[in-house]
């Protein structure tokens, strides 16, 4: 085996493109492993784990590292030589608009009314300001944006009557168009405001399963209910949904909120003429009038269905077998809110657990979100084969636009390895998706169940099942 590599200083490429180039390179004849990554500490650690870290290599996080492993020197060189071609942007055909150079700043863009911003966090606020000055609504996917900027951006958007979704906004559905990670849902009577992307996705998918559609789902970014931000975007969104005639009932989702902010929000909600269900993931206030509180996302979907006189086709949390595994529930999540929800449920059940949110900053610096790039989770999942204290493994598998084209399939090699090392160790997953999603809900379910993974459409249910399996 030879390891061939090069470092290109100060070469920026977005992590999604790098993931695709890595995957293409690994398909080259004679190549056993390939990695094309920004040289962040995390990425270098992963290279070292895979035996792909060139000895003595020096690189900073701004540098691009390309390494390939092969039994054949010539094949390795061929792969390295191909990297530039794979990294090059797609070029228009020579007989078409070849001379048209793509816009390099938002200033050059005309005719757009919504900017979707996904650049690295330290640059993202500037792009968002620029979009707001141009009169565009903003969907700011990037995280690592200063709280002070978030406050200013939201104030600026309020002055200009514009949506400021984010920073760290994963999901929205505006006018039937899914932004970021969004599932293909039916149009319908529910208006959602969510400070949580995967929370919105879970709720949308549970409602979709009950044939209840979505009017709008407005993302606010995970910190909107922090005291500094004061629910600025959530509260403005409520008034928007109140005046939207297609909205009959309203749902509000957030990770645990600041108490004062939650109370202020409650006053706003009480003033609405439409019923609302609020999920602050455990921190419930007292339900009054038309404002009800739910403990988790699944309960939220149930209450919304009830308001519409419908039933949620919920399944009892019934483990597949009565055997108890002991040990801990070990969870590797792509969705932050799904992780928090599971953690609360397991804590309530007094089940020992260790849950990791792979969407946190530490895991995403210099690489794509785990819902797009499953490789880090696969590596960590394989590592669990070595751990003795693992009782049940808990996962989330999230479908929809922007997500990996085959998230269940991507997990299979790791699942096989786990089953090999611990034949009776159960794996439980929530499967968040709709029948219209591009990955195919039933197809993904078959892959999971075929590999011996128990799949539930409710994250709360899958957490309960995992908990019961450990301790009953």
């Amino acid at each position, binding site marked *: 085996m030879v390891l061939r590599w090069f470092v290109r200083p100060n070469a920026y490429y977005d992590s999604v493109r790098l993931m695709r180039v890595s995957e293409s390179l690994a398909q080259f004849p004679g190549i056993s492993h390939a990695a094309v990554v920004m040289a962040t500490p995390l990425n270098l650690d992963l290279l070292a784990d895979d035996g792909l870290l060139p000895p003595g290599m020096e690189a900073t996080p701004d540098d691009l590292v390309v390494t390939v492993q092969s039994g054949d020197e010539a094949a390795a060189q061929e792969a390295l030589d191909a990297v530039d071609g794979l990294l090059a942007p797609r070029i228009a055909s020579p007989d078409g608009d070849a001379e048209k150079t793509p816009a*390099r700043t938002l200033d050059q863009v005309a005719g757009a009314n919504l900017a979707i911003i996904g650049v690295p966090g330290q640059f993202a*606020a500037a792009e968002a300001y620029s979009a707001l*000055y141009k009169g565009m609504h903003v969907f700011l996917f990037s995280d690592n944006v200063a709280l002070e900027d978030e406050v200013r951006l939201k104030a600026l958007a309020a002055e200009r009557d514009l949506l400021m979704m984010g920073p760290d906004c994963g999901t929205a559905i505006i006018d039937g168009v899914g932004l970021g990670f969004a599932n293909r849902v039916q149009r319908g009577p529910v208006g959602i405001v969510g400070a949580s992307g995967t929370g919105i996705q879970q709720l949308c998918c549970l409602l979709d399963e009950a044939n209840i559609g979505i009017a709008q789902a407005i993302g606010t970014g995970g910190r909107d209910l922090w005291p500094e931000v004061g629910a600025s975007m959530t509260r403005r969104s409520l008034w928007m949904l109140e005046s939207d005639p297609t909205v009959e009932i309203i749902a509000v989702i957030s990770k645990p909120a600041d108490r004062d902010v939650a109370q202020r929000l409650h006053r706003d909600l009480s003033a609405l003429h439409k019923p609302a269900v609020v999920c602050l993931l455990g921190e419930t206030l007292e339900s009054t009038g038309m404002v009800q509180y739910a403990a988790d996302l699944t309960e939220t979907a149930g209450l919304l269905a009830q308001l519409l006189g419908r039933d949620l086709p919920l399944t009892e949390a019934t483990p597949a077998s009565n055997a108890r595994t002991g040990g801990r529930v070990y969870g590797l999540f792509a969705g932050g809110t799904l992780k928090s929800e599971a953690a609360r449920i397991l804590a309530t059940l007094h089940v020992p657990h260790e849950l990791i949110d792979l969407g946190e900053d530490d895991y995403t610096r210099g690489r794509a979100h785990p819902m797009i790039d499953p490789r880090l989770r696969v590596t960590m999942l394989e590592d669990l084969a070595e751990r003795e204290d693992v009782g049940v493994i808990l996962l989330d598998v999230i479908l929809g636009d922007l997500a990996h084209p085959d998230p269940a399939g991507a997990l299979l090699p790791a699942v096989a390895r786990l089953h090999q090392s611990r034949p009776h160790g159960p794996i439980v997953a929530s499967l968040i998706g709709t029948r219209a999603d591009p990955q195919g809900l039933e197809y993904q379910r078959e892959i999971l169940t075929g590999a011996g993974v128990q799949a539930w459409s409710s994250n709360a249910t899958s957490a309960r099942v995992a908990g019961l399996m450990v301790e009953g």
Partner: protein
Amino acid sequence: MNLPSSVCPVVVGPDDFGRSLEEQGIPTQHVDWRPPPERVAAAVHRILSDAGAHERMTAANEEAMQRITGARCLLADLRPARDVVPGMGERMLLHAGPPIEWERACGPMRGALMGAVLYESWARSLEDAEGLLARGAVVLAPCHEHDAVGPMAGVISPSMPVFVVQNERFGNRAYSTLNEGLGKVLRYGANDTSVIARLRWLAEEVAPILTVAVRRADGLDLTSLIAQALHMGDELHNRNKAATALFTRAIAPHLVEVPQRQGNQKIVGDILRYLAETDVFFLNLSMAACKAALDPANGIEGSSVVTAMSRNGTDFGIRVAGMKNQWFTAAAPRVDGLYFPGYGPEDSNPDLGDSAITETAGLGAFALAAAPAITQFIGGSPALTRQYTDEMYGLTLSEHPRYTIPALDYRGTPVGVDLMRVARGRIAPVLDTGIAHREPGIGQIGAGIVRVPIEPFDEALIALASTVGPDTATTSA
């Protein structure tokens, strides 16, 4: 607040956001975003995060662009530099580019300065001239700091005749010399007796008669002439064939009507022959008209519009409307171009001349799409000329209302280089340029297109940002 009734998205960042929208059937625009260096990102953030500062900058830039594109430049006069150029001292030489001292001056610049010393009879030999310059006995100053511009070395000495170009809209003036033609010329650093004799002929025989003709023409409208020449395939920097022809057509009747004195008739014939043989004649007028158009924007507080780009063969430098009289510099770039037979890149001097004032004003490489035939001179293809112009729209604030490009459906040329757009788009301007031999006196050895260094634009933006308001954090823990 209302939700958008139909979503028209633009994606800044990974392509995948756009791809997933396209899969939903939503047409999506895309910004090909690149990360700026950290200090530049902080400067951009500082300006954009302060709505007041951003508003002031926008207003300042609007004012700057109105002034620049509203210019109307007329040819007013032809006078010895000492009589008209502000601050022109008796023992002073003006030169192209940002300030440069003798020790750091490049070969062609040194050759031109020495030649000018001989021309002014401040020394009898080249050795004496060099000694004079080396011990600082001649004051050197950038043309730009004296309302003047000069191609290549751009040397202006007190006795040289200069065109006086008047911007009617704002009353300011700009100055440039008579173009010497091609071959052995001072602007490329040549300084033998034939060069000095040519300069004397221009000053002593051509200028007196041409001055009378210029005055009889009574304010030849250069802005209008440039607009016409753009429609005739010139970009007014490397190609001035049409503009020179238009000028000659306009001035010829006045030349022949200059009151007859002894020997005049022969000189009028010589002048017409000189105009007929000198395709590049109009360059100096184009440059002065551009300078006169841009200068009124200098001193508009908070404006990020570039008012001069220039090189002295050692440094490339820019000046910015919001920071009057400051230069921001980096090493002058090497030119990637077509070389005349027998010469190559190893013979070339780094880029030289004030002529980038044309690009600064929306002509030259910015207007390349108007001049497809120029590719015979600078290389490339007509499609490439459109590509360069298209790219320059990305870093400029306006489209010139008077200067239009037929091949682009009469779209105005890109004008008003904006520090913010350069910093955020990570694209530096391109220039058309001639390539000088690095040794003085050999002259032009090629021509091409050069991309200027981005660092001066970055440094200027950082300096401008420090004047707009308090710093704020860009990242959180």
